[in-house]
């Protein structure tokens, strides 16, 4: 495949994630773009094309509804900009778009920016309101994002004898990791008791089982391998990229074939990425993982779908401490969506920056020792889209 091994990440930057009332959508976009360009050690003029990931532009007055926002935020005119949206995989979709253009020879250097301004409206006026007010007039009524994932939590706990305490372990772990991440939305540790006693959102999920509503942006500069070897200060290679789309947003949870115990989209995306990267034993061959922990249950399911544990055994991997920093396969050492938050379009790009830093030894207090190969995974909608990227040191 043209991308695998031939497209490099040469710079990356993440803004603070949080409730950033003093910074506009364009401010965040600009900060991420300039940060990535400076990290790459190049001038903005050297970037030939841009991809912009913003999934919910209506929360910010539709400013990010097209690539035009980039031409406004930074001096990028008249270069081409594509805005992409694939639910929560959008941030990685932007990286994928830029990578395909580079692999095709359309450009040598491109930038992928993910940006989302979710807190210009209150959390209740954000995705909950969207699902209640703007979606399909009959099929969608009653749904919420936590409600949709809670269905899998209920089924998983029933099928495998896991408990809400197991779910709480994900929140405790990821919030502990985030104490080392100055960019995370929440940076203080949580106890299991706090997670279990928090108000319920969609049972069995409570407040601390859910990602918060967050502003933020992240950007990645990509280049061809040849350019990277000649010019980059540091670089990592995209060794495998898989995108899988399995069903419609509203239809998925009606499907007879859906077992509520995992996501076929992740399994397929991982299959593609592993095949391109030559990975046959992911648990051994991957050193660090950022995966889509929008809810605590989702991280457990992801570890199974990504092949790190057999069905039903993701919870054992978690209980054993394997996925904690210092364990055999650290997962979400950034704090994940649980603690960083989830500015939807920015999340995937943030993950790519994190793995880029990990495999180039630049992750500071979160560095996983001797990390050479990492994986980033996002899951879109109620799990109908998944993107997996394997990123490795050259």
């Amino acid at each position, binding site marked *: 495949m043209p991308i695998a091994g031939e497209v490099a990440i040469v710079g990356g930057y993440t803004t603070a994630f949080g409730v950033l009332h003093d910074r506009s959508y364009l401010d965040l976009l600009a900060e991420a773009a300039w940060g990535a360009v400076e990290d790459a050690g190049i001038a903005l003029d050297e970037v030939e094309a841009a991809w912009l990931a913003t999934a919910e532009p209506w929360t910010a007055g539709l400013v990010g509804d097209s690539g035009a926002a980039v031409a406004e935020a930074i001096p990028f005119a008249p270069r081409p900009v594509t805005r992409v949206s694939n639910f929560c995989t959008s941030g990685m979709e932007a990286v994928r778009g830029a990578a395909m253009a580079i692999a095709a020879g359309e450009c040598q250097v491109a930038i992928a920016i993910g940006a989302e301004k979710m807190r210009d409206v209150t959390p209740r006026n954000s995705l909950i309101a969207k699902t209640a007010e703007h979606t399909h007039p009959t099929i969608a009524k009653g749904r919420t994002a936590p409600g949709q994932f*809670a269905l899998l939590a*209920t089924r998983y706990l029933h099928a495998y004898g896991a408990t809400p305490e197991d779910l709480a372990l994900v929140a405790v772990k990821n919030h502990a990791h985030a104490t080392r991440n100055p960019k995370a939305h929440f940076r203080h540790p949580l106890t299991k008791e706090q997670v279990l006693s928090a108000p319920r959102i969609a049972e069995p999920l409570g407040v601390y089982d859910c990602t918060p509503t967050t502003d933020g942006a992240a950007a990645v500069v990509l280049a061809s391998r040849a350019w990277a070897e000649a010019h980059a200060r540091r670089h990592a290679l995209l060794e495998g990229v898989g995108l899988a789309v399995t069903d419609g947003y509203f239809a998925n949870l009606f499907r007879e074939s859906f077992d509520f115990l995992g996501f076929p989209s992740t399994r397929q995306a991982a299959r593609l990425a592993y095949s391109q990267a030559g990975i046959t034993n992911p648990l051994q061959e991957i050193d660090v993982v950022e995966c889509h922990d929008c809810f605590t249950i989702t991280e457990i399911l992801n570890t199974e779908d990504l092949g790190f544990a057999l069905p039903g055994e993701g919870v054992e991997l978690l209980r054993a401490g394997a996925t904690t920093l210092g364990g055999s396969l650290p997962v979400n050492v950034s704090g994940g969506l649980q603690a960083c938050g989830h500015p939807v379009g920015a999340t995937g790009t943030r993950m790519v920056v994190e793995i880029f830093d990990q495999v180039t030894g630049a992750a500071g207090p979160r560095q996983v020792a001797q990390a050479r190969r990492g994986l980033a995974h996002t899951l879109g909608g109620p799990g109908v889209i998944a993107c997996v990227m394997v990123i490795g040191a050259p």
Partner: protein
Amino acid sequence: MGVLRFQRAQSGWFPDLWRLAGSSQVIIGDRSLAPVSAAAAAQWEGMAVASATGWEIERAGNLGAAGLLAMMLLEMPAKGRTKEFAAAASGSVRTFLLEGGPGATAARRRAERVRQGGIDVDRLPTADISGFNPYASQPRYWRELAQDLRLQGVRDAETGEVFFPPVPARGRPVEPFRLQRRGRILTYTRDHVYPLGGPMSMVVVELDGGGRFYGQTAWDFPVEIGMRVRLVPRLLHRGGDLPHYFWKVVAD
């Protein structure tokens, strides 16, 4: 206390047709759709116009058209008396014959008591949908009536997999398939943040005969995996001034 017989339907693009009390002029509610034919307008001459939205009795839930039908039955307590009425909405005019039956007199007395004094039995709490005006579309409403009201889906003739909501037919060997309305709970959640009528459960039901349903419980009752349930029609909301009937789940 009565029998409702379907007579006939005439389809076409009928936008909102209003005829105000005391006037013989038919007013078109939405001029963006096709113009009303003379034949269509003529059907309305001499017919009383009533709205289902006038029929709310405190604590009785969302009666919708049920209250309107009850009023019509109450006006003809004698058995054998009939009344023809038409319902015009969502692209067609459907004509029905309503025939009074035994028990209408007793029902009338009770209905009058309820109208005057309010509901006289304990009711289970239902969602307060007053003021809920979500996205709605008249063409979509008309196009998906069978899906919404009859749970009409499709079934893959080769694999047997049932698709509800139905998928476009091209590219898959699908045939029409109507969901049954009883089944067993596969999974559920009790949702506290959906901004209407909560907390209430969302359940996924494995339906007898194939297919799945994912929707709200009619009220907040305890649910568990494996429980037998059935689907009942309910009024979800009146977005765009259209009564959106769909299905909810109750214990069987």
